[in-house]
């Protein structure tokens, strides 16, 4: 064994220790609990009590947008409607994100208990798990789980039924209003907002759309109580977060960690020692360069994330990284609004042209102007959020964007 390898084993074990410590600190989602017993306990509380607990927990949407869950539920509760719905957003489509898949596979009960809790609070009677089509291999198990709980709800006279819906592959259908359109059999395109789904959602009735992980956390808050949940995070972000770690990482996979870490702390554990950038929050998130690792906090305080962490080491061409992002977005834009539909194509063509020399390097100014207009004038967050990766990559890695690799 060479000296280098010995060193790295030693380092890894030190890293592992650190990781285990963090995992222990935020071990909620994947801890096995008796969901049926918990559900019985939940029903003994009043909906008002539960709403107050969720609100006080500071739980925010774990899909990436970070909207306070308690506030969403309250709005749906107060919105008038003959029927109300709870939808579990399991259309996990952000590149680099695969944590919902693991939660769905390993803890489906917690998701359904989370949905039932939401239904109990908001007086919703129907629940849907909208799962991305690529996860069809789980359908059988998820359906069986729905059946199991529906039987239990029936026995308990709890007026709520849950069922599974599958998406058809469009990235944009992870956006809650596009998801609702897709569920209604329409083109998966974002709706105009307002009205928001909490007042006019599925079938134009009040609808809560919560991410898989958010619902699982609801369950854990009901189980462990408020204080534990609040104590998990390292800053005031509240709670833990399930991360999907990929790219040039020494350790890859799905990890539940406390919120509030710096990117540096994160890289120290997961990096391969040569990390030059971390893409936080998937393709639509921010690309953090090495020089900002120490000062960038992962959490609602700093960089919000749906959980995707993609690490890049020095062998990566950031030109190809950005090109890959833009190729993805020009296809996954829903195509409705002009800034996003045409803008995504122009950003891609623009960096290619600069690279090939058919446009001068000053074309970057044009593209930045474009991406900033997309950021303020697009119809939905897809077009708006493109400024995150584009500006951060072209700002910190401009020489890689325009020079021959």
């Amino acid at each position, binding site marked *: 064994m060479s000296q280098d390898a010995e060193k790295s084993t030693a380092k890894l074990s030190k890293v592992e220790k650190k990781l285990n410590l963090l995992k222990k600190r935020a071990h909620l989602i994947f801890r096995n609990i008796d969901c049926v017993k918990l559900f019985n306990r939940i029903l003994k509380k009043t909906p008002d009590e539960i709403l107050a607990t969720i609100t006080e927990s500071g739980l925010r949407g774990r899909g990436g947008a970070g909207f306070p869950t308690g506030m969403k539920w309250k709005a749906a509760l107060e919105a008038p409607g003959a029927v109300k719905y709870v939808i579990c957003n399991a259309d996990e489509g952000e590149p680099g994100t695969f944590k919902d898949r693991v939660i769905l596979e390993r803890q489906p009960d917690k998701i359904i208990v989370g949905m039932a809790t939401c239904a109990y609070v908001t007086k919703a009677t129907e629940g849907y798990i909208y799962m991305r089509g690529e996860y069809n291999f789980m359908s059988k198990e998820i359906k069986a789980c729905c059946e199991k709980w529906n039987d239990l709800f029936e026995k308990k006279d709890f007026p709520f039924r849950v069922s599974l819906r599958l998406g058809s592959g469009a990235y944009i259908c992870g956006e809650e209003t596009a998801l609702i359109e897709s569920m209604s059999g329409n083109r998966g395109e974002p709706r105009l907002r307002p009205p928001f789904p909490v007042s006019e959602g599925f079938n134009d009735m009040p609808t809560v759309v919560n991410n898989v992980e958010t619902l699982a956390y609801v369950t854990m808050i009901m189980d462990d109580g408020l204080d534990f949940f609040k104590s998990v995070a390292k800053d005031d972000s509240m709670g833990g977060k399930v991360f999907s770690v990929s790219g040039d990482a020494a350790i890859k996979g799905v990890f539940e960690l406390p919120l509030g870490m710096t990117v540096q702390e994160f890289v120290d554990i997961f990096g391969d020692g040569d990390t030059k950038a971390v893409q936080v929050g998937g393709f639509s998130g921010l690309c953090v360069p090495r020089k900002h690792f120490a000062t960038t906090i992962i959490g609602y305080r700093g960089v919000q994330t749906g959980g995707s962490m993609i690490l890049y080491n020095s062998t990566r061409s950031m030109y190809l990284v950005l090109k890959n992002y833009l190729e993805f977005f020009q*296809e996954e834009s829903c*195509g409705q609004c002009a800034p996003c539909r*045409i803008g995504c194509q*122009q950003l891609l*063509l623009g960096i290619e042209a600069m690279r090939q020399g058919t446009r001068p390097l000053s074309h970057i100014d044009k593209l930045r102007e474009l991406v900033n207009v997309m950021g303020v*004038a697009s*119809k939905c967050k897809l077009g708006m959020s493109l400024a995150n990766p584009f500006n951060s990559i072209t700002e910190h890695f401009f020489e890689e964007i325009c020079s021959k690799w």
Partner: protein
Amino acid sequence: MEKVSLTINGINVEVRKGSTLLEAAKKAGIRIPTLCHHPDLVPAGNCRLCVVEQKGAPFLLASCTTKAADGMEIETNTHRVREARRVILELLLAEHNADCISCPASGKCQLQSLAHEYFVQKTDFMNIADKSPIDDSSPSIVKDDSKCIRCLRCVRTCSELMGVSALVSAHKGRYTKVETLLDKPLQYAVCTMCGQCVSRCPTGALVEKNYVNDVWRAISDPEKFVVVQTAPSVRVGLGEMLNMAPGSIVTGKMATALRQLGFDAVLDTNFSADLTIMEEGHELLQRLTKALRDKEKISFPMMTSCCPAWVKFMEHEYPDQLEHISSCKSPQQMLGALIKTYYAQKRGIDPSKIVSVSIMPCTAKKFEASRLEMKSSGYTDVDYVLTTRELGHMIRQSGIWFDELEESTFDSPMGEGTGAAVIFGASGGVMEAALRTVYEVVTGREVPFENLNITPLRGTDGVRAASIRIDKPLPDWSFLEGVEVNVAIAHGLANARKLMDDVEKGLSPYHFIEVMACPNGCIGGGGQPMPTSPEIRRKRTAAIYEADSKLPRRKSHENSEVLALYKDFLTEPLGHRSHELLHTHYTKRDDLP
């Protein structure tokens, strides 16, 4: 009514709760540029050109879709807003084949005029215009995807107003485009060819098929005798093509202009509109007789057949209900058949030398003229159909000073039309004209409405219904004593569908239904001048009723030329010759390739 108040560019405005920022700005006297917005359609917020800035908000707001709220402070002309609009225009131009010189929409193209307004002459963005070939398969509409900016006005028109959805938004991302189902050529799509998409397309992506040069060629051919007919609603639309205000009545000037253009005879479709009433009115009476006196099983309601887009809609969508449609041809096709028979005989012209042109507010009429069964004269009954817009272009090309023209009348025979014929141009007009005649045939008295104006049939509601009770009929019609004749009117095919669903179930209470495919009838036709809006159509409608009220004869059965036609040639309504020349049959179109 609840109000909200806000400031726009520092101006205080108070608007109805639920109003958009765009409406509020209009009220404050501020224009905001728009492309995907159209007053007839549900706002989409696609083009984002109408963005404005709200004080304190991180994002710009699309004013067409954002509701005004109390205390908002909106700015419509900040640097940020102007720059966003400029970039969006550049993007749209990058997606657009800006071949303005050869584009039929040049001059009326809203993208072109906004690009000028914002000094966007060229863009550093790459051109990514669609490269698929132009679809000119349809006899009515030409679709050029390279010009399309995906505002979806056509798609929304076709679904919201027409209930047809011949055009849909297909694919996603960079591949998003407007297509027919399975991208079939328009000719093979379930398209009624109404042209409402054309009249709402802000660019040249959808235009009518232009036959102006064919008509010029015919006019300059000394061998040919070129006859022209003009539809009722053209006379209240044409002025808009020639810098006149909406609602200008230009009947006399139009007749003069047509002669100056070189047409050899200028006839009036109003003549055959009156003829249609004679035939269709008697068809209704025949159906009522069979049902009420002879107790035969007759399917009611009878439905009008003047509108070719409506007829094609029925052939596609309700192929088993075609017996409801009157067998009468439309006025265009009746006149076409008579021009190459009766008229040719009377004037001593070889019908093979006649070129029959019609000026219509409509693109579907181009399709109608091309229907295989429309050859009852032995020739193609109508050779070319031009829209009001195309006639406007011909007049401009000819250098005629339209507003200075002397007025003149149509040629005879087949140039006389009554007030009943003029109102064919507005929704409800055919029904009103029919009742004016039918009621009098049955009772010997005029319809019991002041000045013959059957006001319950007029208006802008998408579906309207009325009943007229027959008292003291003439002895021949005694079986109609006390019968309430129930009638209904629909305009916009989406509204027609509401009536049809009842008809299909056998639940329709009506005897007679008038349907016009286009909003507000032919005055809002797909071939009329652009732009179109409820306000413009209201003015055209008012002009139609004004034209009716000024005519000396206002009942179809008083048209002396129509009476002469029956005496000399047709003998009687629904007679043998009528059936040969003036009636037709329909084709089920539910199994097209």
